[in-house]
């Protein structure tokens, strides 16, 4: 492509968002963490929030998220991002505080912290990346793993009699009075990615308006640990995850509709 030159009459209609650092990420090829990052960055850019947003990164594949965003950021202990974000938000109530968490972080070790952050109506926004597996540690079973799903710690497939059924966090957190906006979207194709972006925009607007807790769950792929190609992994989301994790808005407080 080095030889190609852009005709001058062409206009840039899409480029990397400013809230993303101009840097290489450690994510595997085709991993939709990158898509989730880009959507969050685009939403922050579009709402003009970059200079007052503080990102709380999790433990998991997104452990270096603070390096990938051009935002003030900090790195929480595993599962504790909602508690850390609570500390940041309570200290600086006029800032936008975002946690970015995977399913091991949010649904397993940090289940207590996320539940209580929602319960308190903590005015933070959570981007919850659900890929039904522990990515960083090499593909172990998560509370979100599907029944029968083979992982390195459920080599014969998740046995629900032994380990329970997938935990549906959006449905659970939507029950909290403090939740103003809880939605599940998927990143498996461009149309759904666009819907996911809109949901993230809504979540940030909810926080800006001080309406309460907001979370967008994003069904995501993990090609490496699912042992699929990036393209097959997106199809796997559609075929296997969507029936267990239906997309939709699980909580939209009345005030959110007026935004």
């Amino acid at each position, binding site marked *: *492509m*080095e030889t*190609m*030159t*852009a*005709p*001058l*009459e*062409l*206009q*840039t*209609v*899409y*480029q*990397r*968002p400013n809230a*993303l650092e*101009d840097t*290489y*990420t450690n*994510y*595997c*090829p*085709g*991993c*939709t*963490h*990158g*898509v989730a*990052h*880009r959507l969050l*960055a685009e939403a922050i850019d579009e709402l003009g929030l970059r200079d007052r947003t503080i990102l709380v990164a999790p433990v998991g594949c997104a452990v270096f998220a603070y390096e990938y965003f051009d935002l003030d950021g900090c790195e929480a202990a595993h599962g504790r991002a909602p508690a850390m974000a609570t500390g940041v938000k309570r200290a600086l109530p006029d800032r936008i505080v975002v946690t970015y968490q995977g399913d091991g972080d949010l649904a397993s070790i940090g289940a207590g912290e996320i539940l209580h952050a929602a319960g308190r109506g903590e005015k933070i926004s959570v981007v919850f990346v659900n890929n039904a597996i522990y990515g960083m540690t090499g593909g172990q079973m998560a509370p979100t793993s599907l029944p029968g799903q083979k992982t390195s710690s459920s080599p014969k497939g998740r046995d629900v009699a032994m380990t329970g059924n997938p935990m549906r966090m959006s449905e659970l957190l939507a029950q909290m009075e403090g939740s103003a906006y809880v939605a599940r979207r998927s990143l498996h*194709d*461009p149309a759904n*990615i*666009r819907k996911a972006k809109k949901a993230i925009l809504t979540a940030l607007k909810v926080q800006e308006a001080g309406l309460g807790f907001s979370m967008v769950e994003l069904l995501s792929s993990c*090609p490496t640990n699912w042992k699929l*190609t*990036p*393209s097959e992994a*997106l199809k796997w989301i559609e075929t296997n995850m969507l029936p267990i994790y239906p997309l939709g808005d699980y909580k939209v407080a009345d005030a959110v509709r007026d935004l």
Partner: protein
Amino acid sequence: MAHGMILIDQERCKGCSLCIEVCPQHVITINTSKLNAKSYHPAGLDDPGGKCTGCAICAVICPDACITVLREPPLRRGVGLSSPTVERML
């Protein structure tokens, strides 16, 4: 149909091929003759017929945010390529 083109950051691309799968004009290919610094074969626009419409679907699915999309402006013309990001991709 509007005319467009894309620029793929050859060093950031991890060759995941998702853009290739979603491109409605089938004008993106993996450049197997090239290896970037991270040892990936990057994707690139392969559009001798000028079929790219600048629809940006490739950029929407790109997990590495490494696609810049250009398109004929609908109203005014002559906006040049000024951002350093874009220049590096040329």
